[in-house]
């Protein structure tokens, strides 16, 4: 233990003994980026950390992913803003990796670059009809109701139908279901985007189906979200009782997982409690298990628009180590609807000069150290380049998962510094922040520093107070930059 602590002291000392302060650039200002920044600042005294984000606003999915009716989950923003306010840390918004500055340029300006830009694309189902109007990715729908600048033109049609089908049963799927079904009076006092609130107030959707390939024991959601959606006022919940039958393989899975056990208990209780029929005018939530989408159906009356999903019944097959996958049985049925939200997983986007594993949708890495290519050669690393968060692990987990992810990446980085792996770069001074701002200025990039975000923050809160909301989000880039720029 004394040796371990001595090593820690050595890491802390390194950056102060060295005549060149360690300069780090983190791309992405969500939980992965901020937890990494916090850890680096703490571990390497004298280090300077710059966090860039392509949006004018920081915080990634904490701002644009966490549902509007989950304000406590967003409290972590207070911790992140204290990190940004640290004298050795700077946030620069509206700076995009690729178009504002290249990865190669960042590597020239900084000793260390950590990529933490998450996953801004979607897994595709890969079936016919996926491009019919009315078929949306849940990610875009969430961006839309959370006021993300890239989601404001989604304009989902909530008036042409009374039925929505959501593919997937993870927490994002449950968030979307809840936003569609919650009384809008409850949403009106959250930070939901105004255009979404208006659309939801005029929505004719009364029935939501949450469709999963496998059974209730394999559902990917967690207890808090499930409990919440089951507790919505005056909502009729339906699950087929036969779907709740469990096999020995299911029991084995539940024995090893507290989460799955509790989810199954919640679903069974909900299925048997409550009335067997909805009352007139009541909103409905249906859990559909053991169904996988085969194709999207096109409407006869409205060419080019979705009118339903052709589903195949599935059975479960064990593939070892307690895991069961869904296998089609060749029996089909149709589920009519006017809107489909695909919530089957996010996917990261590659950038130039960055090794990328297209199959897994992540940057190939070992404990956060970026590998030079996909060959799996574990000895060939990209010098000074690291990853953290969804870009490193894939798009799963919660905010807190990034805490441990950052710890691992920073431990790798610290080890590399200590062992002299980065000596070729750390020997020399790097321009860091000053160099970055110079290049961006030459390119007329409107950088949004943290103090400018604070102006946006203040204005959003002010606008929100006029409507009994915690904030009224500014949606367009133009508006955001205007408020950021004003004195």
């Amino acid at each position, binding site marked *: *233990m*004394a040796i*371990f*602590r*001595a090593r820690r*002291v050595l890491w*802390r*000392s390194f950056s*102060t003994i060295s005549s060149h302060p360690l300069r780090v650039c983190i791309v992405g200002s969500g939980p992965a980026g901020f937890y990494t920044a*916090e850890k680096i*600042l*703490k571990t390497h*005294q*004298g280090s300077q950390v710059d966090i860039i984000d392509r949006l004018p606003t920081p915080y990634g999915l904490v701002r644009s992913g966490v549902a509007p009716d*989950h304000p*406590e*989950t967003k*409290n*972590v923003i*207070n*911790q992140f803003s*204290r*990190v940004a306010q*640290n*004298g*050795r840390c700077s946030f620069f918004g509206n700076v995009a990796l690729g178009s504002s500055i290249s990865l190669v340029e960042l590597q020239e300006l900084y000793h260390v670059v950590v990529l933490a830009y998450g996953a801004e694309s979607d897994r595709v189902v890969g079936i016919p009809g996926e491009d019919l109007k009315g078929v949306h990715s849940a990610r875009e729908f969430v961006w839309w109701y959370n006021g993300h600048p890239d989601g404001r033109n989604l304009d989902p049609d909530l008036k042409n139908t009374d039925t929505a089908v959501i593919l997937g049963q993870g927490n994002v799927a449950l968030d979307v279901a809840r936003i569609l079904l919650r009384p809008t009076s409850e949403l009106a006092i959250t930070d939901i985007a105004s255009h979404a609130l208006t659309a939801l107030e005029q929505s004719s959707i009364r029935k939501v189906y949450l469709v999963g390939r496998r059974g209730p024991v394999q559902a990917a959601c*967690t*207890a*808090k979200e499930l*409990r919440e959606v089951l507790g919505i006022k005056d909502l009729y919940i339906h699950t087929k009782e036969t779907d709740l039958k469990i096999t020995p393989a299911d029991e084995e899975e539940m*024995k*090893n*997982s*507290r*989460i799955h056990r*509790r989810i199954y208990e919640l679903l069974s209780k909900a299925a048997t409690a409550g009335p067997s029929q909805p009352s007139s005018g009541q909103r409905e939530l249906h859990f559909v298990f053991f169904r996988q989408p085969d194709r999207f159906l096109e409407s006869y009356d409205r060419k080019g628009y979705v009118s339903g999903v052709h589903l195949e019944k599935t059975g479960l097959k064990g593939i070892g180590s307690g895991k069961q996958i869904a296998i089609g049985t060749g029996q089909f049925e149709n589920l009519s609807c006017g809107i489909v939200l695909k919530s089957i997983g996010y996917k990261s986007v590659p950038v130039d000069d960055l090794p990328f594993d297209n199959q897994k949708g992540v940057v190939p890495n070992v404990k956060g150290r970026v590998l030079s290519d996909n060959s799996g050669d574990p000895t060939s690393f990209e010098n000074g380049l690291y990853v953290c968060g969804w870009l490193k*692990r*894939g798009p*799963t*987990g*919660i*905010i*807190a*998962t990034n*805490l*441990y*992810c950052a*710890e*691992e990446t920073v*431990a790798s980085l610290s080890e590399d510094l200590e062992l002299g792996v980065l000596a070729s770069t750390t020997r020399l001074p790097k321009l860091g922040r000053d160099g970055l701002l110079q290049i961006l200025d030459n390119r007329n990039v409107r950088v949004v520093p943290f103090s400018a975000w604070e102006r946006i923050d203040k204005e959003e809160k002010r606008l929100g107070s006029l409507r009994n909301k915690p904030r009224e989000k500014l949606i367009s880039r133009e508006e955001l930059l205007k408020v950021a720029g004003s004195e």
Partner: protein
Amino acid sequence: MSRTRFRQGHCGQCQRSPVELLSETRAFFQGAIFQKHHYFSTLGSNNTSGGGDEQKETISVTFVSKDGEEIPIRVPIGTSMLEAAHQNDIELEGACEGSLACSTCHVIVMDMEHYNKLEEPSDEENDMLDLAFGLTETSRLGCQIIARPELDGIRLAIPAATRNFAVDGYVAKPH
């Protein structure tokens, strides 16, 4: 009341070389600058936590850090373990600031006797414990353990999570 923490080694027992101490001291002062509200007085082990003005009855609580270091503190009755940790610069995360919306203040109660004296966790706390890293049979959320006289002497371990790092965000454990 989540604060960015820079916790100093609280080591009365081990031998430290002057070089280590010097670096540690330099780091200490830089940490003090880094952390705006660092109260030097909180390093004392028998300190009542900075906070209330009145002299409150306190209990003794020992935190055991990820590295195995023991940190004895005194906690006023009615204060949560999360608040107490922060008031004493103990590295316990609290992302949601005590609102039962995360699992980062997860602590392990080190003896069954004290664990059994705690009230049963609510559904909401259990929902968050589902997601805690390194969950054990005596795990609780630090923000939900409130100091009471019966808990005097309680020992709480802060779990190390970097081992057993699972993609899904939790460690599946027979429980």
